[in-house]
Structure formats: structure tokens, C-alpha cells
């Protein structure tokens, strides 16, 4: 004992992951080398054609008697060439004595350095006379009537698209690995963790002189054999004393992770390009204001989810979790297939609404599943399982969807989403089956809940100055303005998806960290205010940022949004728990929490509806700044209304004491 040993499970997974990464690295290396080899002759052809075009233009001028040193407009020729071919790095014209007449894209020193550099050997196939590879450039040199012409192409240009592909592949690998982990978790739970825990429970009962229930587990391997013997022993003892033992039917709450992951992932696949997809349909429908129609439909999904959830909760009691999830998944499948095949805007409205109703039903079924299969002491961890699945889907969905949309088309991406919900529909019978501990549907939003919430002034301030602005910012900026702005700049859906993914990553890392900080510090209101400021302050700079800085601006604003919201969300929940009228809040069952979630979802739907007209009137970057300003103002108002009076009260109490 004592010496560190390798954990077989971890070692096994590590071996599989390393093998996969090695194989993918090999494939990527092959793609780069083979791709370069096959593409190079085409690059050389293109370079020669472009150089000949410039040669003909200059020679025409020289033939007309214009001296080479008096040639003008070469910079315009270079700009025109560069516009059509971004791989071009420089253009140089020299006279017969090799003096530079015009040099574009390179300094004179760099040009002379390049001319003096040795040619790359062996020369790759496909080079024509006058072409060489030097100092990282494919140089095409052609003679002029009086002088020489040099056109340089970046040698890396060939590798660039293949290198960009690494990001796409990295996203695919990340998603596939996470999906594998999500699939493995229930398999390992069902076959190892759950039977082991059941065996431990029975053994602990035996140790205290009580005869435990037969575990009823059904697993293989050494553990399975041990459990069979344990069961036989308990059965024999019970039989000899004419006692009956009840067989436990274990339902694995961990299954909810995969089910939550699948339905959220399916919906998130379209996140990076949905506004543009809607705008394309709106443009084909006469009489519509495209911006407004796009904003309304982007937000409609969240609003429909908010409205459908109370009805789904009523249906839960009648249908039960499996049938409700199955029905929801089928509706979502139909909605996503319809979204992919929609012929016009009004079609799309119907299909998006159907998809939202399906989303609401599956969400409620998952919530109910957690409530029914957990007890008070493990309900929070059950809910954390569900939230974990949703967070992973939030991270992977937009990035993976962006890659799929760029490569296979937006319609196909929605069909892939439909495939995922259909898979969820098939899996639910296996993953959610089993006897419920108690039949207990999730609490639904009621008028009494609204009355309770709105009677509480402090709660109302939380909702209006913290919760609603945060949700508006999330949906208005991240779901609408960001994709519209970046796609408008010419970014691909895959690139937008990778930026949107940063929000989920920030939430994943920041959420638990800031939740612990909130619990320790007991200064929730300060953290809510700070989160509000962090998430919105950078957005004020967006209207003034140059287009060249778009990447860093997008990354930093989305990261700040994620960090800010991962700070404020747990603190908000903690504050509402303190302000709630019932003590059931730890199970997510207080009317205040239910109402808060409803208002958040409904408010979330308003985000794109507000952002779209603003973007149409003032431009997307200005609209982003305005949304940031609204949230920053809300945060400052929150400080004035909540934080400062609370500090003053504490100070007065201190003086009185």
C-alpha cells in the first residue's frame, strides 16, 4: 500500500483519448502535406496569370512611350489585385538597372533581402519559368519592355485554410469527447457506481444488525458476482426467518444529464446563424420589416418556452415524465425539421413555436424526473446534474452548429438537431424509466405566486434591476446582435459559433467559483451589482472599436458577459432564497423562484425584439452599446437602491450598538 497506483478507469479513458488525438493529429498532418502538394501547382498557375495580367498593362504603357520612371497608378493596380486575391503579398517594378520604380506591400529593405535570399530547394512541382520560392514567398518575376516585374504570394496562403480547419476539427473533437462522456456517465453509473452504492448500503445495514433490502442490481464482473452472493445471503437469512425483502428498483438520476444535453444541444446548434437564417426567410416574404421580423422570431422561441412551461407542468401530472419528454422531443423534432424545410417566414414562425413547445415539455419532464428521483438531501446535486448537461450543450452546440452550417448548410444543421431530439425520444424510455419515488410534478407558475412576488418590493427590485437586464443582455446581445454583427463583417458561422461558445465556457468555469465566493462572503447584492457592471461595461466600447479589432472585441465582450453573469446569477438566486416566503427554495420549489424563472424567460424573449429595431435604426454596433448602457445604468441604479441603503442601515445599526 502507499505507493501511488494508476486508476484503471482513468487510465483506460486516457489511453482512448490519447489514441484518438494521435490519430487526428496524423490525419491533420496528412491533410496539410497532401493538400499543399496538390494545391501548389494551382497557386503557381494563378500567380503566373495575375503577373502576366500586370505585365500586359505595364507593357502597354511602355509601348506607348511612357518612360518607366514616370509610370503612375501601380498602387491602384496592386489594390485591385489584392482585392481579388488576398494571398498577394507584394508587387514591385524595377527598371533595367534594377532600381525600384514602385514597391507595394513590402519595404525596400525587405524586398532586397527577399531578392538576395536563396531559393527553396528542391523546387516544388508546378513552378513555371521565372517562379521561385524565396523567404516565405512564391515570387513570380517577368521581364518588362524596360525593366522587371515581381509579384509575391504568401507561401503560407496554401496552409491557411487547412490550419483554419484545425479549429473546426478541435470543436468536433471537443463535442464528440463530451458526448462520449455524457454517454459513458449513465453506463458507468448503471453498471458500477449505483450497484456499488447499493451493496455498500446493504453491508452497512448488516453491520448495524439489520437485514438490508436485496439490492436488485443487475451488473456483471466481480462486483456483480459479489452482489449476487450478497443477495443470496440476505434472501437465505430472510427466508429462514419468514421475512420478506423488497427488491429496490433504482432509477439513475444521472440519466437526466444526457437527456438535458440532447434537447438543449439540438436547439443550440442554430444559435450562431439563426438571426441570419430568419432574415433570409423574412426577405422572401413581402410586406415585412426584415429587422423587426428577425428580432421577433429570434425572441419568440424563449417567450413560447415561458408560456408553454405552465401548461407542460399541468400535462406532467397526466402524462408522466416519460410520455411528456417523448411528446416534447417529438414536437421539437417536428419543429426542427420544419425549421429546416420552411418555405417562408410564417412557416418558420409556426415551426419555431412548435420547437419551443417541445423544448418546454422536455425541460419540465427533466425537472420532474429530478424531483421524483431525489430526496431533499440529494435534490440539489440532481438539479446540478441537469444544469451540467445544459451547460455543456450551451458550450458545444453553437460551435458545433457553426461548423456544420458552414460545411453542410444551415438547413442540414437543423436536420442534425432534429436527429438529436429524435435520439433523445428513443433513449427516454430507457433512461427515465423506473418507478418514481413519489409522483411530484414541478411547481408551476400561478397568479398567487405572482401576487406573492410583486408584494415584495425588494424582490421586485431584484427582478427589475438585476434579473431582467441580465436576461435582456444575454438574448439581445449574445443571441441576436453578436451573430448579426459578425456575420455582417463576413465571419463564417463556425467562427461566430466559437465566439458564442466562450460564454458557456466562462459560465462553466466562473459559476462554481463565484457561487463559493458568494456563499463565503454573504455579500450577494455587491456581487450582483459587480456582475452587472462587468457584463455590460465593455459593450459601451463596441461602437468605437475599429473593424480590425473585431475578433478581440467580440471575444472580450462575450467573456466579460459570461464572467459577469456567472457572478450575478448564483448571487441573485441566493438573494431570492433569502427573500422567499417558503423554505422549499433549496429544491427550487418556492413560488418566488418559479415566478422569477418565468419572468426571466419571458424577458429573455424580449431581448432580440428590442435589439432588432435598435439595430435597424442605429446599426448593430451602436445598438450593442445602447444595450450595454441600459444594463450598466440598471446596475448603478441597483447600487443606489439596494446597496447604499443597506450599507447605511448597517452603519446606523453599528453606531446604535
Amino acid at each position, binding site marked *: *500500500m502507499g505507493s501511488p497506483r494508476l*486508476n*484503471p*478507469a482513468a*487510465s*483506460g479513458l486516457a*489511453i*482512448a483519448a490519447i*489514441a*484518438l488525438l494521435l*490519430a487526428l493529429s*496524423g490525419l491533420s498532418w496528412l*491533410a496539410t502535406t*497532401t*493538400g499543399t502538394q*496538390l*494545391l501548389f501547382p*494551382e497557386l503557381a*498557375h*494563378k500567380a503566373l*496569370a*495575375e503577373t502576366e*495580367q500586370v505585365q500586359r498593362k505595364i507593357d502597354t504603357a511602355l509601348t506607348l512611350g511612357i518612360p518607366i520612371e514616370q509610370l503612375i497608378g501601380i498602387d491602384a493596380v496592386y489594390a485591385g489585385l489584392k482585392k481579388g486575391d488576398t494571398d498577394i503579398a507584394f508587387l514591385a517594378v524595377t527598371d533595367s538597372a534594377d532600381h525600384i520604380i514602385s514597391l507595394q506591400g513590402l519595404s525596400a529593405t525587405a524586398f532586397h533581402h527577399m531578392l538576395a535570399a536563396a531559393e527553396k530547394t528542391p523546387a516544388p512541382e508546378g513552378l513555371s519559368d521565372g517562379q521561385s520560392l524565396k523567404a516565405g514567398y512564391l515570387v513570380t518575376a517577368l521581364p518588362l519592355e524596360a525593366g522587371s516585374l515581381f509579384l509575391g504570394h504568401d507561401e503560407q496562403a*496554401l496552409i491557411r485554410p*487547412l490550419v*483554419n480547419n484545425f479549429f473546426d*476539427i478541435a470543436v468536433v*473533437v471537443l463535442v*464528440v*469527447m463530451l458526448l*462520449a462522456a455524457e*454517454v*459513458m456517465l449513465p*453506463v458507468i453509473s448503471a453498471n458500477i*457506481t449505483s450497484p*456499488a*452504492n447499493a*451493496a455498500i448500503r446493504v*453491508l452497512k445495514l*448488516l*453491520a*448495524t*444488525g*439489520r*437485514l*438490508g433490502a436485496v439490492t436488485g442490481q*443487475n451488473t*456483471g*464482473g*466481480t*462486483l*456483480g*458476482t*459479489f452482489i449476487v*452472493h*450478497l443477495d443470496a*445471503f440476505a434472501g437465505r437469512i430472510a427466508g429462514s426467518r419468514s421475512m*420478506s*425483502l423488497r427488491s429496490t428498483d433504482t432509477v439513475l438520476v444521472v440519466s437526466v444529464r444526457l437527456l438535458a444535453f440532447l434537447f438543449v444541444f439540438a436547439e443550440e446548434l442554430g444559435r450562431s446563424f439563426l438571426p441570419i437564417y430568419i432574415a433570409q426567410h423574412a426577405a422572401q416574404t413581402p410586406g415585412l420589416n426584415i429587422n423587426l421580423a428577425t428580432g421577433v422570431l429570434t425572441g419568440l422561441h424563449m417567450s413560447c418556452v415561458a408560456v408553454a412551461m405552465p401548461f407542460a407542468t399541468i400535462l406532467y401530472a397526466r402524462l408522466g415524465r416519460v410520455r411528456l419528454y417523448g411528446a416534447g422531443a417529438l414536437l421539437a423534432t417536428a419543429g426542427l425539421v420544419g425549421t429546416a424545410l420552411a418555405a417562408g417566414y410564417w412557416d418558420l414562425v409556426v415551426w419555431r413555436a412548435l420547437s419551443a413547445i417541445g423544448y418546454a415539455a422536455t425541460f419540465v419532464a427533466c425537472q420532474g424526473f429530478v424531483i421524483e428521483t431525489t430526496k431533499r438531501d440529494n435534490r440539489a446535486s440532481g438539479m446540478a446534474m441537469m444544469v451540467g448537461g445544459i451547460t455543456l450543450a450551451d458550450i458545444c452546440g453553437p460551435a458545433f452548429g457553426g461548423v456544420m452550417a458552414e*460545411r453542410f448548410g444551415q438547413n442540414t444543421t437543423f436536420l442534425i438537431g432534429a436527429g438529436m431530439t429524435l435520439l433523445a425520444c428513443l433513449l427516454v424510455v430507457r433512461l427515465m424509466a423506473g418507478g418514481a419515488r413519489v409522483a411530484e410534478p414541478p411547481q408551476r407558475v400561478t397568479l398567487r405566486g405572482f401576487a406573492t412576488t410583486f408584494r415584495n418590493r425588494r424582490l421586485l427590485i431584484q427582478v427589475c434591476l438585476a434579473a431582467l437586464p441580465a436576461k435582456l443582455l444575454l438574448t439581445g446581445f449574445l443571441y441576436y446582435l453578436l451573430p448579426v454583427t459578425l456575420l455582417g463583417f463576413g465571419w463564417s458561422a463556425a467562427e461566430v459559433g466559437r465566439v458564442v461558445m466562450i460564454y458557456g465556457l466562462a459560465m462553466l468555469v466562473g459559476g462554481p467559483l463565484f457561487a463559493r465566493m458568494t456563499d463565503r462572503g454573504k455579500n450577494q447584492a455587491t456581487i450582483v451589482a459587480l456582475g452587472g457592471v462587468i457584463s455590460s461595461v465593455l459593450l459601451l466600447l463596441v461602437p468605437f472599436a475599429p473593424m480590425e479589432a473585431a475578433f478581440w472585441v467580440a471575444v472580450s465582450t462575450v467573456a466579460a458577459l459570461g464572467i459577469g453573469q456567472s457572478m450575478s446569477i448564483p448571487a441573485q438566486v441566493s438573494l431570492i432564497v433569502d427573500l422567499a416566503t417558503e423554505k422549499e427554495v433549496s429544491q427550487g420549489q418556492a413560488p418566488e423562484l418559479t415566478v422569477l424563472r418565468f419572468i426571466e424567460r419571458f424577458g429573455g424573449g424580449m431581448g432580440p425584439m428590442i435589439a432588432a429595431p435598435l439595430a435597424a435604426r442605429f446599426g448593430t454596433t451602436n445598438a450593442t452599446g445602447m444595450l450595454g448602457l441600459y444594463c450598466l445604468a440598471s446596475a448603478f441604479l441597483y447600487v443606489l437602491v439596494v446597496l447604499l441603503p443597506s450599507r447605511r442601515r448597517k452603519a446606523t445599526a453599528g453606531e446604535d450598538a
Partner: protein
Amino acid sequence: MSSGKHYSLIAKIGGAMVAVSVLALALASVLNLLRFEEAYQSLVAQRLQVTAQEIARVLEVGLDLGLPVDSQDNLSGTVRHYLITHPDIRMIAIHACDGRPVIREDRSDDTDEPWRDHLGKASWFSVDPDGLSVGLGISDPLGSCAAGIAITQSADAYHAAVATITNRFLTAGLAAALATATATVAAAFLFGRRRPTLQKADEDFTEILAGTIPVAHFQAEDASERWEQEVVAAYLAARPAIIDLTAGRHHDPEPH
């Protein structure tokens, strides 16, 4: 029974891991292949655009002088010249705004008119089994449509390059999938291997049930995984009670 179930667990875990690995490799290969096709098409399109722009310039000089496309007699010679100096180009055509070909020089007997699907566009690119084509729309000095230019390059070289890279990806992908699957199955066996400490506990249990009371030569800390340690620890804690119950020395246990 237990052996069958044991292998079934390994099969489940191994199967899931292999499926996931193959999916990742297949997707990566397809993405690489599509990116290659895109890069190749982009290079060809840029090159053909250069030629199209040169012909367009000649045509625009005539338009600026007030000569409609049908009346520019020099165009045929220009088009033929470009076809001769660019052996990779298969067809160059100048067409009217309604799609009617005005001049067409073609090395083959093909009569396809790829510009028909792109009338009215400023520039376009298309790939079909026979060729890669680019086109430009030409406007008169008043900005109205005057004509269009279409250039087609044979797709043979393109298809050959795609076939080469596809074959290499298929071969490498299969090899990679096989290697990954082998490693993954080995990993699954490692994952699902028998637990020696728990096995000792089970043998000890069986002996107790058979009426003998062996000395326990194992401890929870010997186990390699936490769950196994916890089961063995719980068993060792319950062992005296099990021995008593087996020997009938215990009070009647209470049902739970």
C-alpha cells in the same frame, strides 16, 4: 453468468468509445476534404477571373465606343487567342443578357451553357462534373446589362486531385480508426478488468457462507479504485455480523 455480463460491460463501454472515435475521425476527414475542395476551387476561380477580367476590358473598350457586343468583330480573335494561350481552359463564351451565346470557343463538343443559371449576376463560380466555370456580368456605360462572359476549365485535374486526397484520407482514416479502435478496446479491458481485492472479499464471503471462517488477507486500501475500496471497507465492517448470522449466533435481524 457473471463472466458474460462482465464482457457485456466491456463491450458496452468499448463499443461506445470505438463508435465515438470513428465518428470523430470520419468527421475530421470529411471536414479536411471539404476544406481542400474549397481551397482548390478558390484558386481556380481566382485564376479564371483574371482571364475573364482581361476579356471584359477588351469588351468594355468597344462598349465605351458605342459598339454593341454583336458588332465587336475583334472579340472572336481575342477569345480564340486566350483559348490558345491557356491550354487548361476548355471553353470561353460571350453571351447576351438573355443567355443567348454571341461568341463561343470550345475545345470539346459540349453544348452546355453554365451561365444560364447565373444571368444577371456580377460574378459567379460553379462546379459541375464536367468543369469549373466562372462568369462576369458586363455593364454598358449607363450601367445596364450589356453581356456576360463565361470561362470553363476542364474538371479532370480537379477530380483527379480530389480523388487522390480522398484515397489518401480513406486509407489513413481506416488505419487511424483501426489503431484507435485497438487502443480503445484495450482501454475498455483495462477499465473493465477484474478487481482482485473485491474478488478476494467475494471469495472470503463465499467461504463464510460455506461454513468456514478464513482469515481476511486483504484490506480496503489494496483496491485500486475508490468505489472498490468503499465496498471492501463496508464488507469488512459487516463481516463479523455476517459470520454471526451465518452461524445463527445473532439475534433476529430487523427488516429494513
